[in-house]
């Protein structure tokens, strides 16, 4: 039995599990199984790579590989199990960055190895025949890839991986709140584009042999890291999910470069699959926010629009509502729709809101949740958070389906959401969120907005909904306000 073929078959199986896994991940009923299937394929491919190969390998290498995997498994497992659900987007970003860094490191090492293969010379300066034979053997093993082509793949993997790594770390810091303001150098768009062009030219010169030496590769590495930082820095925190999704597909491409380099079909299929699915997902997310991708990356979200928002003074009265009044209003309603936002998650109020829902349902009130596509910090994030507190997902209704229902709803309770219910998206062309699909809560008979203060939302703009005569504000931290609301409701029976 040819062991190389066995490995190839394992990689084939792995590739198929990736496709099936991703397919199943896109349906709620099969998603979990799909993840496990892809995980199984990955495990198989990793084990196969370690166990099956022709060359003799020193025990020290095995020890190193196994301990590295052990270390990574423990650290990855612990972080993934321990982290709070609200911190999910940050975590995905970090793990993505690790993949990018892995691809960049592989390229660095491969480049080093290449250095030894390029000029197989004897100490006397003559051509070393055995070295040459060795080199040709390696080439044959790597699927007839020429020196230049391999170098090109190494450079591509290095650049894409580094950009993805540096960008993900910045994205993580932004979501985390460490870097909470978009930092814009003057002319950042032009600077960034010049830097990107420079990266291409530099990489081309290295591949083409115009410049030689390790120094240049390290410089390219540093420049790619710098570009990754500069690329994400000017983008606002609200757009991070889109950026992470984009960087996710970058890492996929970096992995695919590795696939080319080693003629490894599993890496190639896995990488390209994620690259293309990730790009599509990025576009879908942009569509949910009604903004083209170019606007997210190069756009001046917040910068140009801040002036516009400030220019439009909102006037009118803001009504406040007491806990008791809110409880009475909801208790005697037929239909209540809850609009959860990130503020709910920050206050860790997802369990209390489920309690509120249960009590109201017991009293015969119909309760639904209206989920805006970008509620939370990532599309679908809110669903995950509510599911965590046992809210049945039949009750989570997507925007297009729930919007017509608002007109026959008695009370809409908005908890910690702001921009996704801002009518400016419909009627203020100067607003930065103009054109974004929103939840039409203003059609409901009563609106109660729970907020900590009158501060603007994530997009940094005022909300005219608060001045609507049908609207009343319930100020306070989401968790304590909802807890009081629940006990008030209980007392009423």
């Amino acid at each position, binding site marked *: 039995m040819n062991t190389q073929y066995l490995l190839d078959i394992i990689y084939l199986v792995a590739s198929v599990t*990736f496709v099936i*896994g*991703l397919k199943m*991940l*896109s*349906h*709620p009923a099969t*998603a*979990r199984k799909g*993840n496990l299937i892809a*995980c199984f394929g990955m495990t198989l491919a*990793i084990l196969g790579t370690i166990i099956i190969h022709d060359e003799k390998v020193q025990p020290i*290498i095995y020890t190193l590989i196994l301990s*590295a*995997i052990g270390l*990574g*498994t423990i650290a*990855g497992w612990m972080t*993934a*199990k321990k982290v709070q*659900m609200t911190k*999910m987007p940050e975590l*995905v970003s970090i*793990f993505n960055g*690790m*993949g990018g*860094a*892995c*691809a960049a*490191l*592989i390229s*660095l090492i491969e480049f080093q*190895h290449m250095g030894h293969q390029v000029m197989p010379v004897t100490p006397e300066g003559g051509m070393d025949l055995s070295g040459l034979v060795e080199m040709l053997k390696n080439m044959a093993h790597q*699927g007839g890839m*020429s020196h*230049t*082509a391999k170098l090109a793949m190494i450079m591509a993997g290095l650049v894409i991986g580094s950009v993805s790594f540096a960008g993900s770390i910045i994205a993580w810091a932004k979501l985390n709140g460490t870097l909470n303001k978009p930092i814009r150098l003057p002319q950042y768009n032009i600077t960034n584009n010049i830097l990107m062009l420079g990266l291409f030219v530099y990489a081309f010169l290295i591949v083409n042999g115009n410049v030689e030496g390790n120094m240049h590769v390290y410089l390219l590495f540093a420049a790619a890291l710098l570009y990754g930082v500069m690329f994400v820095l000017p983008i606002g925190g609200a757009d991070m999910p889109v950026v*992470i*999704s984009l960087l996710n597909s970058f890492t*996929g491409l970096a*992995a695919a470069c590795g696939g*080319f*380099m080693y003629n*490894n079909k599993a*890496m190639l*299929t896995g990488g390209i*699959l*994620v*690259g*293309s699915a*990730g790009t*599509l*997902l990025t576009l879908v997310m942009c569509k949910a926010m009604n903004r083209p991708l170019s606007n997210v990356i190069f756009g001046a979200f917040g910068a140009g629009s801040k002036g516009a928002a400030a220019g439009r003074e909102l006037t009118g009265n803001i009504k406040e509502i007491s806990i008791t009044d809110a409880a009475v209003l909801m208790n005697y309603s037929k239909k209540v729709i809850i609009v959860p936002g990130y503020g709910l998650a920050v206050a860790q109020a997802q369990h209390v809101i489920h309690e509120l829902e249960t009590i109201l349902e017991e009293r015969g009130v119909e309760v639904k949740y209206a989920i805006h596509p970008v509620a939370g910090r*990532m*599309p679908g994030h809110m*669903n*995950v958070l509510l*599911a965590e507190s046992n809210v*049945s997902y*039949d009750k989570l209704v997507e925007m297009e389906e729930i919007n017509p229902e608002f007109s026959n709803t008695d009370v809409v309770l908005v908890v910690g959401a702001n921009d996704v219910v801002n009518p400016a998206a419909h009627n203020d062309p100067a607003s930065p969120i103009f054109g974004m699909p929103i939840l039409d809560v203003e059609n409901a008979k009563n609106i109660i907005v729970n907020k900590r203060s009158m501060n603007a939302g994530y997009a940094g703009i005022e909300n005219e909904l608060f001045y609507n005569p049908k609207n009343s504000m319930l100020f306070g931290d989401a968790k304590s306000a909802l807890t009081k609301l629940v006990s008030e409701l209980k007392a009423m029976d």
Partner: protein
Amino acid sequence: MNSVINFIGNNIQMFYIVILMVFVGIEVIGKVPAVLHTPLMSGANAIHGVVIIGAIYVMLHTDPDNILSLVLGFLAVVLGTLNVVGGFVVTDRMLEMFKKKK
């Protein structure tokens, strides 16, 4: 120009895979509901962790005397494992919550 054609010709199978996979990727997540965007992104994130195979491969072909390569390779395997294990576990944790209530 010549070298580009040679490159494509020598790796024509790989190019077929790339192009077909682009379509598969688009097709496979074409109709995903917004509910699953986050888990899907996370799942895809885990799948590109396949880059770890490259890290293991490079380790297997590293000369035990080449300390720099060994250190970088070790780091690459650790990071790759983090990507794979963390990615799959996080995705599973998210999806675990999508149970249907009676």
